[in-house]
């Protein structure tokens, strides 16, 4: 018998605290597998956010720090500067990164800090019960937009990857999705590449992962995957927005 797939050793045995069918767990696996395959478990430090993934420090079998809401890139900056040999990543949701932590994120990118940001975008505030987030789609119904997000009063969703790709300090920005097995494979490649950039000292890398929130979207886990594909990917197109390694090769 040869093992085709088993749980990554970079994940602890703690049962994940996420709702059934939440794709946070898939993204955790991809991060854990990437770190394992690069053989840098011993010098990796992760920064957990506030939000559904606040307990991420229980799930990753490496050193972890839990940052105040939105401040993960600032904490990661400190870690990266104090530990030049360290592999530093943050794991943040859209309420953490694109709302209260926008300033920290934008400035960490513009400074070109040598960190990896895994940005999980599910277009809603999950942990607090499904309120409208900056990434909520126009017309999307949430607890605080019961008639759908009205762009006249609530504005438009923020496309983080496109915005950060305009900054000189950003080395790599890609948006991926985990709604199907082929997309999960692509997401893994992107996350691994971001870690390779960090190890090579190329600077700021962000991978935005479109994720589901079956509970707050009011859908079954399988319906949520379909909803993501039909509604989120048209507004948040998948792809590479910046890659300095590709530009160097030109």
């Amino acid at each position, binding site marked *: *018998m040869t*093992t*085709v797939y*088993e749980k990554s050793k970079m994940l602890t045995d703690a049962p994940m605290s996420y709702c*059934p069918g*939440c794709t*946070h767990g898939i993204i955790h696996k991809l991060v854990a597998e990437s770190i394992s395959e690069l053989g840098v478990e011993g010098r990796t430090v992760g920064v957990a956010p506030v939000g559904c993934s606040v307990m991420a420090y229980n799930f990753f079998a490496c050193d972890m720090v839990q940052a105040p809401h939105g401040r993960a890139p600032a904490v990661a900056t400190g870690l990266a500067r104090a530990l030049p040999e360290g592999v530093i990543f943050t794991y943040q949701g859209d309420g953490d990164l694109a709302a209260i932590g926008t300033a920290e994120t934008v400035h960490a990118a513009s400074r070109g800090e040598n960190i990896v940001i895994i940005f999980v975008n599910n277009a809603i505030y999950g942990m607090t019960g499904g309120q409208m987030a900056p990434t909520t789609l126009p017309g999307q119904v949430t607890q605080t937009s019961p008639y759908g997000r009205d762009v006249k009063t609530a504005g438009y969703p923020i496309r983080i990857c496109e915005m950060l790709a305009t900054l000189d300090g950003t080395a790599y920005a890609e948006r991926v999705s985990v709604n199907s097995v082929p997309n999960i494979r692509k997401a893994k490649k992107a996350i691994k590449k971001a870690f390779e950039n960090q190890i090579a000292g190329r600077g700021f890398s962000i991978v935005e992962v479109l994720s589901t929130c079956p509970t707050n979207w009011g859908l079954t886990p*399988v319906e949520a995957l379909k909803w993501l594909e039909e509604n989120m990917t048209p507004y948040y197109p998948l792809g590479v927005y910046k890659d300095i390694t590709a530009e160097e090769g030109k």
Partner: protein
Amino acid sequence: MANRVTVNEQICKGCGLCTSVCPKKIMVIDRDKLNAKGYNPATVSDIEKCIACAMCAIMCPDSAIKVEKE
């Protein structure tokens, strides 16, 4: 001998994502079983048909599935 798919039934939350990606449609939710958390865990209905593609395991958010190939 067939391939082997092991589901950690206590970790499984019965979300059904594995059942939606199985190309052979042999990953199913076992409605007759409950785990300690109160979820119906996933199981394999006909292991002889399994091709060990591991798509169920790749899709599982809780890393509850291990796939071994003969």
